[in-house]
């Protein structure tokens, strides 16, 4: 009995440990969105459906069109990536994890011009919304969400 029990316990712990160790990886979604009141041409991106009502209240627009996005799985918490459209790009540089949030350096470019630079602590339960420049009859909105 005992010689078989010991290996079973050992295997159980190894399996639990491996399964548990794999959990912490998380994905950050970054989106460049044009908010407008134009007739909808595309459905609202699934990533912002949870905050769509908040965006409507904030900006007074009813439609949200995704023009650029990036999804990055953070393994070390120190990765960088780019979400871009034809004219805009958002450069994200993750500087590690602190108190349940990722410290991100963000740079918003309009082609080669740096429009905005910010450093934020992106919480896992709280999206970040950035109001960009006016584009036509709409507004550029940047959204970052930890998924």
């Amino acid at each position, binding site marked *: 009995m005992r010689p078989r029990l010991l290996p079973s316990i050992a295997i159980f712990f190894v399996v639990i440990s491996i399964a548990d160790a794999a959990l912490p990886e998380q994905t950050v979604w970054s989106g460049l969105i044009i908010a407008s009141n134009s007739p909808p041409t595309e459905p609202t991106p699934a990533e912002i459906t949870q905050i769509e009502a*908040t965006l409507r209240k904030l900006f007074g627009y009813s439609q949200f*069109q995704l*023009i650029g996005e990036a999804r990055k799985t953070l393994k070390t918490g120190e990765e960088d990536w780019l979400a871009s459209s034809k004219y805009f790009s958002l450069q994200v540089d993750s500087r590690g994890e602190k108190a349940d949030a990722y410290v991100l350096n963000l740079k918003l470019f309009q082609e080669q011009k*740096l429009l905005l630079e910010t450093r934020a602590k992106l919480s896992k339960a709280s999206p970040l919304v950035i109001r960009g420049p006016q584009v036509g009859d709409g507004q550029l909105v940047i959204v970052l969400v930890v998924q």
Partner: protein
Amino acid sequence: MKTLEEKWTAWIDDQLTGRELEEFLASLPDRAAAESEKQSAKQLGSFLREQALVLNNADFFSHQLRERLDRESGSGRSERDTAQTGWWTIRRLLWGGITSLAVFAFCTVVVLREKTPPSQSQYLTEILTYRVDPTVSPNATISMFQKKEDHVTVLWVDGLQSLPAEYATK
């Protein structure tokens, strides 16, 4: 009437007296040799008596001896048993190693989990610093606020240069 052997034994033990002693001594063919033999017999007797005294403790020595033999044979047996059963066989060493690794992995995960905060944070996103290039956007102003009821943090930039609709292209 005593035989010659009985008289000899009695003489050795100094139990012949009087006329009986005289008759016995007279019957001896070589008295000096007989006296020498008597002395030897007496010495042998006293030696045997001494040994008999020593052997009065025979049980004690026997017990000590038995215990010692038991101890020696016992330890010999246990060594032999250990060698035969061989607790640290390759198989057990292997399982011991696996168990140790499992315990180590488990402890590591526990420590890492304590360092990793729970995924459902109560904290809102914070803006630490922000900046616009004054040469590119001289009229830009920035403010930030948190919509706690919606769990959203907003960085509100005003005064950036407006762009034509074609900039909304994917």
